[in-house]
């Protein structure tokens, strides 16, 4: 029989993973829309308005799914993790309150005007509404990442007689040590995720029509500038975030790197199979000393291994060793794609190189994979704690029955697959419309379903090889 706590953990992992897909996309897309509308107002070029309208439809669907999956999140804390809520409420509650007041209302309040108001309020006010929605997504990320970071690196609090965390210094709580790194890392991840989707849709249509396709080219060009600039910066931000984690959560870093034994001059393990049971890594392939160089910026720096912690205080390396490599691998791929775009611009073959366009088309989802892999790394790496070092996950759970959690879990899984499956289907249907033909097709949707986007894409692969 599975415990209520395992079911509750799985439920939270499921609903939060599903949820993060949408904000990761809409945080970037809201800013892309603001940039497009701004460019349209400034340069008065039709293509920017075309693209704005094109992506607005996708934003509407993605945002609705983000909202409804987000409401579920705000109730998860109470229904399944009530002890956590009681204990952390005085510290985390006000931060979430600020998120609702400064972000959720702002987004929701101006979304109606952004979606339906262009002909009602005039261009400038409409642009203002778009900006407010974009700022809303930013404020939302700010507060919720502050909450999450505090759970990783709690500061500025005291513990009262009933075991509640109570606030001492709000500045220390909000700007806790891991927060700036996490915020920057996540915002850049969101921008990259969106950029890859935009570029992928552009590449798809460029390959399909193969003519002078201005709107698709605009999408590809804008997205690739973003990728070329942000992807390398993301690597640097990730490195800083890693060093911060090494300082505050060394066990997590040990598990990410696959280090079980403490060592001076530790190697960088490229591949291997972590074995938590035996406390060692099997089939290790590594580069000597590089691990210490990266983490301590010195060839002989000491890295503490997982075996230094008691077994029940270690995060599971068997999961985060892999998720971390997946994230970093995608990050490196993003940098390569970005640099390649610069080189092709110089050569003048950015739009004519078909294999490169195909790579772009298939890279559409890699941002999402990297975001989820990154979150798995940091959240699983925080285990066995909810508030790092202070409150264990097993002590955070509500007094709940396995049956109730199990039933609600099944209900969430079924509903999410139907609802979000349909949403993704409609988004793909929209993607099938040529951004150059968008106005002609306005509200007359493509006859073929979203599946044919994939079928077409696969057909193209066949031709390539």
């Amino acid at each position, binding site marked *: 029989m599975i415990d209520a706590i395992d079911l509750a953990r799985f439920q939270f992992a499921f609903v939060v993973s599903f949820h993060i897909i949408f904000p990761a996309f809409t945080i970037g897309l809201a800013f892309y829309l603001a940039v497009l509308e701004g460019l349209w107002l400034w340069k008065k070029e039709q293509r920017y308005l075309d693209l704005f309208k094109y992506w*607005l*439809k996708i934003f*509407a*669907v993605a945002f*609705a*799914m983000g*909202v409804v*999956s987000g*409401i*579920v999140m*705000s*109730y998860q804390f*109470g*229904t399944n993790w*009530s*002890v956590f*809520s*009681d204990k*952390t*409420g*005085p510290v985390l*509650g*006000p931060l*979430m*309150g*600020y998120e*609702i*007041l*400064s972000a*959720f*209302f*702002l*987004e*929701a*309040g101006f*979304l*109606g*005007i952004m*979606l*339906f*108001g*262009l002909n*009602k309020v005039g261009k400038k006010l409409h642009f203002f509404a778009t900006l*407010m929605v974009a700022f809303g997504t930013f404020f939302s990320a700010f507060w919720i990442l502050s909450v999450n970071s505090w759970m990783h690196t709690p500061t500025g609090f005291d513990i009262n007689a009933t075991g*509640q965390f109570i*606030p001492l210094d709000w500045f220390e709580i909000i700007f806790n040590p891991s927060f700036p790194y996490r915020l920057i890392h996540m915002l850049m991840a969101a921008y990259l995720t969106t950029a890859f989707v935009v570029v992928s849709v552009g590449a798809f249509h460029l390959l399909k029509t193969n003519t002078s396709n201005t709107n698709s080219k605009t999408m590809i060009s804008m997205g690739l500038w973003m990728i070329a600039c942000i992807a390398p910066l993301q690597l640097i931000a990730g490195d800083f975030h890693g060093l911060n984690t090494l300082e505050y959560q060394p066990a997590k870093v040990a598990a990410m790197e696959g280090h079980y034994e403490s060592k001076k001059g530790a190697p960088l393990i490229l591949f291997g199979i972590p074995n938590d049971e035996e406390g060692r890594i099997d089939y290790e392939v590594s580069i000597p000393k590089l691990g210490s160089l990266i983490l301590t910026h010195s060839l002989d720096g000491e890295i503490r291994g997982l075996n230094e912690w008691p077994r029940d205080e270690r995060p599971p390396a068997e999961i985060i060793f892999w998720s971390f490599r997946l994230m970093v691998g995608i990050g490196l791929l993003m940098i390569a794609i970005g640099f390649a775009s610069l080189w092709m611009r110089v050569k003048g073959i950015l739009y004519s190189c078909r294999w490169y366009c195909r790579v772009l088309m298939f890279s559409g989802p890699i941002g999402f994979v990297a975001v989820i892999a990154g979150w798995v790394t940091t959240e699983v790496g925080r285990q066995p704690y909810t508030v790092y070092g202070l409150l264990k996950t097993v002590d955070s759970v*509500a007094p*709940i*029955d396995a*049956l*109730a959690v199990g039933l*609600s879990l099944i*209900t*969430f899984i079924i*509903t999410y697959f139907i*609802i979000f499956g*349909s*949403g993704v289907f409609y988004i793909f*249907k929209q993607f099938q419309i040529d951004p150059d033909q968008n106005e002609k097709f306005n*509200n007359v949707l493509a006859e073929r379903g979203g599946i044919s986007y994939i079928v077409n894409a696969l057909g193209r692969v066949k031709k390539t090889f």
Partner: protein
Amino acid sequence: MISIELIWAVILAFAIFAYIVLDGFDLGIGIIYPFLTKKVDRDMAMNSVAPIWDGNETWLILGGGGLFAAFPLAYSIILPALYAPLTAMLIGLILRGVAFEFRWKSKSKKNIWDQAFILGSIIATLMQGIALGAFIQGIDVEGRAYAGGWWDWLSPFSVFVGFSLISGYALLGSTWLIMKTEGDLKQLAIKLSKKFATIMLFAIFIVSVWTPLLNPEYFIKWFSWPFMLYALPVPLLVFLTSITLFYALKKQHNIKPFLMTVFLFLLSFIGFLISIFPHIVPPSIDIWGAASPEKSLKFLLVGVVIFLPVILIYTSYTYWVFRGKVKLDDFQH
């Protein structure tokens, strides 16, 4: 005596009431949707709430988030106690929320998202009512945790409150349509409003008589001298408001029926507050016992004082932009 805990209880009550009225009318549109048989009527009804439903639902998050921040103990007891109805409510809200976007994308004649919109709205409303009923009945507490069973929320009273709320939201929805539409659809909305008003008033009466019988403390407030004196204006005003409502419906007023319905909700809400005050988890925990430390309450109060007026201004602005009778061609994006 005014304390910061009391101020927070008022803020929370305000957020919850704002939610009930605002999401009430757009959930109500979903409940009366089956009575709108023509596609154009359905499109109109949907368009009348499409730009604002999202903002309306944000008040629910403020209610939940505010409870978590200001009264974390209450949050951590009430939510597990109402586990099943709240989960079902969330599923209902998901179904209807996405229907706003999806129904325009689906090509099939029998639009499955119309069905999802109806089903989701009814489930969400029923479950909110059941949760409210279960809350009024009282929640079993031991130490700092919920001590009851998994089916405590289910009782004849809670189910009755659930169905009562369906009639109430339906009335909010139909009177909203009176305000936002013209011609045949408005006439249909008036007819529906008369029906739902009758049902709702009957439901208010039953719930008002039933509630004091649940708990001797409630009984004292409503039926003993001199407490009665404070409570008495509520039923009297309900009586006057319902007469005005029916008169306005008969005269085919545009806005009055909706306003009167909102006022009925306000009176019912005040009645509810009279019953439970000062408890936040009836019958055992009061607002002082559940409150966060002063430092938390003060910190977020600053945010409320700064942001709430601004929120009210731009929310009103959005309502102003989309004011008046709704037209079909305004809503393509």
